[in-house]
């Protein structure tokens, strides 16, 4: 991989980890309903999808999950699989939606946070064998809309700097 | 005519919503069969009868008959009220002279006969001749304080079953001013008759709830009725167990139904014929069997027996199960109870 791209991706990876840590220190979010978060690291993934390709987005996405597990929650613990499921589903969905539909970056961002939460719930249902988690679905559905819009807008502005239209 | 994408979308959404609404509607109203419910107040109890059938006319006719049956037995077994031209327990207890014989209606005759048999089968634990002692307890309960002495209870009048004599041709004779009290059997007995009546006219899917006596027939949906048992330690509708079954009777005798407290002790209404006092082993005993009058009698009898004896007795009976809710909160089940879980 070209050095420039490698460096850029590494910095982005580090940045997304930082975003994740910062997010988790905010009270309220992440406490009441599992799977709800500001989704700031989605800015990074979205950015990578627009600047580069699907492959790079997956690297950063999965890389972020691995680093977070190493540093904070326990590598290969249940949280790891939880986040991994959400991240993979989210990245794939965002890419598919960008390529095959006419959604703008806002819409893609909403899909991204939506599928991230859905992915986490699915993994939770599978690994913990509880169906009950599905009751959080309506709350999650509603909350992803505003956070998705905000993240999308922020990413669009960042991409402007790089003259990438979104 | 080609539709624009927008029109497709709107039609699609409309169809999906309609489809979902229909599904929801079907989900809620999936029961074909109609529930008819009617309530009555007899024998000091709020009685509710539910019949499941599509034949409304038939159900309405049956409900009228059910009302008549309960009313009849209510009047006949009533020991606190008199009715013109009805020779009921009140009359027998208060107006019949000693050694005087009188003819009574066959319904009343039969229930007394059945109760006397139960006396001998239960070794005297089920005794409808305790009216005099029950009256003493009742007056203390109304007062709310004090406790009768054994001599008060035993001297007020005869408590002997032998003083109730049934003769041929539906005649009854009372000796030594014994007083008959049918409270422990009237609800179960009548409920059994009502249940049999409903079945005889083809209305076999029903729930009869006469307070502590419940009888259910066949289920309206090929499942099993879920019969909750009230938790004696909690108020209102709290239950501690669900009995799942069809064509069964469930009867509970409890110390919480009629009682008063004095000096931190609870004195309830189920009297042990031997001590003439209410025993303090159980908060409630529930008996499950097909026949409602048998369940009613057994619930009183087993309530009065010590746990080990009672359990042995119930386990020896076929198709009878029981639940003991002890004073200390422990709950025990008879051996075969799991068929109802």
């Amino acid at each position, binding site marked *: 991989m070209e050095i420039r791209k490698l460096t850029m991706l590494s910095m982005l990876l580090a940045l997304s980890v930082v975003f994740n840590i910062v997010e988790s220190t905010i009270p309220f979010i992440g406490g*009441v309903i599992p799977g709800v978060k500001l989704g700031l690291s989605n800015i990074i993934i979205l950015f990578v999808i627009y600047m580069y390709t699907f492959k790079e987005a997956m690297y950063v996405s999965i890389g972020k999950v691995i680093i977070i597990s190493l540093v904070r929650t326990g590598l290969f613990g249940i949280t790891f699989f939880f986040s991994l499921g959400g991240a993979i589903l989210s990245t794939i969905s965002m890419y598919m939606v960008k390529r095959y539909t006419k959604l703008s970056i806002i819409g893609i961002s909403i899909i991204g946070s939506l599928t991230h939460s859905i992915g986490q719930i699915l993994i939770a249902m599978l690994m913990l064998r509880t169906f*009950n988690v599905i009751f959080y679905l309506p709350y999650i559905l509603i909350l992803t809309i505003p956070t998705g819009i905000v993240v999308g807008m922020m990413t669009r502005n960042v991409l402007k700097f790089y003259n990438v239209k979104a | 005519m080609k539709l624009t994408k927008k029109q497709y979308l709107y039609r699609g959404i409309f169809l999906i919503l309609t489809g*979902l609404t229909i599904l929801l509607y079907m989900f809620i109203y999936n029961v074909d069969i109609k529930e008819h419910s009617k309530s009555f107040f007899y024998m000091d109890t709020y009685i509710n009868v539910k019949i499941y059938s599509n034949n409304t006319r038939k159900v309405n006719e049956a409900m009228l008959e059910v009302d008549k049956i309960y009313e009849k037995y209510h009047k006949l077994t009533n020991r606190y009220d008199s009715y013109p031209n009805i020779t009921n327990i009140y009359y027998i207890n208060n107006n019949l002279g000693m050694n005087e014989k009188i003819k009574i209606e066959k319904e009343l005759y039969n229930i007394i006969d059945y109760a006397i048999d139960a006396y001998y089968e239960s070794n005297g634990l089920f005794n409808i001749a305790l009216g005099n002692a029950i009256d003493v307890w009742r007056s203390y309960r109304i007062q709310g304080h004090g406790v009768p002495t054994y001599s008060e209870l035993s001297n007020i009048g005869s408590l002997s079953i032998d003083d109730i004599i049934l003769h041929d041709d539906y005649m009854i004779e009372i000796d030594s001013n014994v007083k008959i009290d049918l409270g422990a059997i009237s609800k179960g007995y009548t409920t059994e008759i009502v249940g049999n009546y409903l079945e005889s006219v083809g209305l076999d899917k029903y729930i009869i709830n006469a307070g502590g006596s*419940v009888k259910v027939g066949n289920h309206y949906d090929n499942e099993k009725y879920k019969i909750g048992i*009230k938790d004696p330690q909690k108020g209102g509708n709290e239950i501690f167990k669900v009995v799942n079954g069809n064509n069964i009777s469930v009867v509970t005798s409890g110390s919480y139904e009629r009682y008063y407290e004095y000096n931190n002790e609870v004195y309830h209404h189920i009297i042990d014929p031997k001590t003439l006092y209410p025993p303090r082993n159980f908060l409630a005993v529930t008996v499950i069997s097909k026949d409602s009058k048998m369940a009613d009698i057994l619930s009183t009898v087993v309530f009065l027996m010590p746990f080990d004896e009672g359990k042995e007795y119930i386990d020896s009976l076929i198709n009878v199960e029981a639940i003991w809710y002890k004073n200390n909160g422990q709950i025990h089940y008879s051996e075969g109870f799991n068929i109802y879980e």
Partner: protein
Amino acid sequence: MNKSDIKLILGLIILVILVSALMFIINIATVNGTKKALVYYDNDLILSIDLDDSEFREYKVSGYNGDVILNASNGKVRVVEEISPLHICSYQGWIDSPHEIIICLPNRIVVKIEEQKEKIDTIVR
């Protein structure tokens, strides 16, 4: 933001309404019964708490990382203390219905509420 986005958002809102309505209806035919909190370690039930008791009670179970302390009172249950990096599950606070669940991933503890929500046909009093 373009038309597709608006459609997406509207679609989501409709979905939310439908799903909520469905869950609400599924909830309707229930009668009271007993409410219990079930505590699982992985898939094994390690503790069952009777929530009908209104007294305040404390429980301790062993999670993967150490002790996990639970409180139960007034039909609610919560995790008070647990050994984990983010303390998410003690953060979740009280839960009191079967729709809510406390998941302590690092400790592999899950707390669910079970109500005997059978539709009771009648009650013997």
